[in-house]
């Protein structure tokens, strides 16, 4: 079989396919998104984006009870959304193999918090696997499915950003078809509370058996070193340990819950000093200390915040400081794409004296300069509830800004609640037909599935009306007057209102591949008034004579700069200059 350079996430998908997974669900979230996108390329797997992680988990749970092998994917905070099901599922246990991916994001590259989901797994009493490279990402999915079926338990496979988003070599295998297991309805196992007390001891018994298994499980691997320094480690941090402490004895834990107590004791007894090197919280370290072992060092030395790296370990071990970056290098924060339809909304919001509760998506950038027109961002779907609360705290003109995908994910119940409880908020629904921040995944209001098939389109206007909002209007997001006018009217409306700012994400293939006639600046007319620069479009550059000029190859013909030009000096180039955007 051939070897290929695969992303950790691609390797997880490959592992699911090779292991006979037939159903896979999830909700996009960095750093987990590529798993389902890769799985969707295999016709033998029903891979799908669900409305949110809870729904994805429940669909997976049903498919597994029904006898299929299942993979469910989400980022760390996604498991909070799915936690209700996650906590309950272990009681009944599973039928077909069930692995849930928890992609944790230490360093918060694309997240609002750091969260070590091994603690959630411990709370749910679910075993946790932690691979260290892409090959193991593939292999551990297969291992997880086998453990899941043998022990009748959901299994968590925990990744962190660097593991999910690194590439390394993977030996490719063939798919092994796995027969669907028979589903036996069993009220004592799958239904009512009066029987749950019968299941409860089974959960403890299972954990104990898994703990025993961990004492001999091959993925909990010891690598001989001297008797001086030993390292207990897991995940991607293992590769950093090998880099920085090549001579040390290593206990690499592939299964970090439940932990193999006897092995931990024996390993620590054999070494003078043991470092625990794990990304995230002191999960292993605390367990080691709870065994009464005291010759360990972990978070106090290596730190609990952010990602690990070989350089960080080196510095923590006083093995030499690494060169620091140059101080005060001009930052380059991300920004809205060329032609992004969100710009007009935030520039209109900036003009209004309103309190804006934002949500999770590209539009979090509306909080940054030059807009500074979004005042809170918490978690998925929080914009609406937060605005309702702000209103209760005396802010009279509150606006929620939420994207279409986030609205489907968890905004809808909040809107229902806002109407029910008498809010007068104005909800701006940024409808770009996709889940933009994670790279453009379709959802229920996009009109297609993960696998590119046509799908029924959720009618967002009807949904808002059904929630009880009478004032629902749709505006063209690239029309500045429509956007600003729509917002003013909505704010003037007594009672809740919704402005749907509609226009497809420029990153979608249908937008990227369309022919556009780029705009250009007519220097004979331009007065260098700077108005177009205030659109903050990356395609508008400055000439040495301080004239704006538009990079034709990048222009999406969104027209916004032409709308702000007071002397009509910006207009489309001749038709013959039509260009494919990218």
């Amino acid at each position, binding site marked *: 079989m051939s070897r290929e350079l695969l992303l950790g996430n691609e390797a997880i998908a490959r592992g699911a396919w090779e292991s006979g997974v037939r159903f896979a669900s999830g909700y996009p979230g960095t750093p987990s998104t590529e798993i389902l996108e890769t799985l969707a390329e295999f016709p033998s797997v029903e891979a799908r984006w669900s409305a949110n992680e809870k729904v994805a988990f429940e669909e997976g749970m049903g498919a597994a009870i029904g006898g299929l092998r299942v993979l469910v994917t989400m980022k760390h905070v996604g498991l909070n959304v799915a936690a209700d099901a996650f906590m309950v599922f272990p009681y009944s246990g599973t039928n077909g193999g069930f692995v849930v991916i928890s992609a944790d994001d230490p360093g918060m590259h*694309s997240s609002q918090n750091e969260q070590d989901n091994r603690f959630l797994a411990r709370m749910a009493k679910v075993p946790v696997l932690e691979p260290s490279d892409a090959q193991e990402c593939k292999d551990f999915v297969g291992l997880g499915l086998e453990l899941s079926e043998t022990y009748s338990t959901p299994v968590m496979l925990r990744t962190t950003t660097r593991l999910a988003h*690194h590439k390394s070599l993977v030996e490719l295998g063939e798919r092994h078809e796995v027969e669907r297991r028979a589903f036996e309805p069993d009220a004592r196992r799958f239904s009512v509370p009066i029987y749950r007390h019968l299941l409860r001891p089974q959960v403890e018994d299972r954990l104990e058996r898994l703990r025993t298994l961990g004492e001999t499980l091959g993925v909990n691997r010891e690598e001989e070193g001297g008797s001086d320094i030993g390292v207990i480690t897991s995940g991607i941090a293992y590769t950093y340990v090998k880099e920085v402490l090549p001579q040390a004895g290593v206990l690499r834990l592939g299964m970090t819950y439940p932990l193999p107590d006897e092995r931990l004791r024996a390993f620590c007894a054999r070494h003078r000093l043991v470092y625990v090197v794990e990304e995230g919280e002191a999960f292993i370290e605390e367990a080691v200390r709870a065994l009464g072992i005291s010759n360990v060092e972990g978070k106090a030395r290596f730190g609990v915040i952010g990602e690990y790296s*070989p350089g960080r370990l080196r510095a923590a071990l006083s093995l030499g400081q*690494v060169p620091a970056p140059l101080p005060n*290098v001009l930052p380059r924060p*991300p920004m*809205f794409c060329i032609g992004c339809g969100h710009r007009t909304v935030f520039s209109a919001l900036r003009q209004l004296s309103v309190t804006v509760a934002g949500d999770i998506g590209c539009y979090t950038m509306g909080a940054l*300069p030059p807009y500074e027109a979004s005042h809170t961002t918490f978690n998925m779907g929080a914009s609406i509830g937060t605005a309702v609360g702000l209103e209760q705290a005396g802010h009279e003109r509150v606006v929620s800004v939420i994207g279409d995908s986030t609205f489907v994910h968890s905004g809808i119940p909040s809107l229902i609640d806002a109407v029910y409880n008498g809010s007068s908020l104005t909800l701006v629904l940024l409808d770009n037909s996709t889940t933009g921040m994670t790279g453009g995944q379709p959802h229920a209001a996009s009109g297609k599935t993960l696998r590119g098939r046509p799908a029924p389109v959720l009618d967002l206007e009807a949904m808002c009306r059904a929630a009880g909002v009478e004032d629902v209007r749709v505006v063209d997001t690239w029309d500045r007057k429509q956007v600003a006018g729509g917002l003013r009217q909505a704010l003037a409306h007594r009672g809740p209102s919704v402005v749907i700012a509609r226009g497809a994400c420029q990153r979608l293939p249908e937008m990227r591949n369309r022919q556009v006639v780029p705009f250009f600046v007519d220097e004979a007319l331009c007065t260098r008034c700077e108005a177009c620069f205030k659109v903050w*479009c990356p395609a508008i550059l400055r000439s040495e004579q301080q004239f704006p000029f538009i990079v034709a190859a990048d222009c999406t013909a969104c027209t916004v700069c032409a709308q702000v030009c007071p002397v009509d000096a910006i207009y489309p180039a001749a038709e013959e200059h039509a260009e494919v955007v990218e």
Partner: protein
Amino acid sequence: MTEKVYSLIFAGVGGQGGLLGAEITALAAVRAGYDVKQTEVHGVSQRGGSVETHVRFGGKVWSPVVTPGEADVVVGLEKLEALRFGHYVAPQGVVLVNDQEIVPGSVANAAEAYPRDAVDQLRARGYRVVVLAATQAARDLGDGRMANLVMVGALATLLPLSNQSWIETIEQRIPEKFRRANQQAFQAGMALMAQAADPVPANPHANRHGPWGGRAESGSVA
């Protein structure tokens, strides 16, 4: 084959194709039979932000992450980004800088604050810097966006990867429609290195000749 682990940093602005350049380099190293790891560090996926990609290859590679002070080559696709990631270069390493300035769009007064002297600042730190007009070379070939492949061509002169590895990788990775132009861009990068004002001795294991025939010098670009 070398046991030494080579560490590379690709630094650029989202949309510049730094990731593709890194990927082509990683795949060429795979073809050459090395163990390879690669990782991309960036926040959200929009255009316009800083993007850094790490590539490491050699006999056995553990960490995908390059440590500051360890990179054999820092490939800066843009001057400010070269400045930002210059500290990754090893004492004996090289910073290749594309002579292009992209002013950050979302920072107030960025045009005034932009470090026009980025190369001087890097040199003042004692780094070995080679400035290459990669964007101009790519424009001369029809599309400035191929600057990434020009830079990869320049990088290739410093790495122990065979011509065959690069040829096959570009063949495999670049769609046919763009392949010829990208091959030319790669070749142009090799030529730029040969002409560089502060030349760096080519890796003794590297290809001295352009992969698509002719010596890697200015005459072979056309």
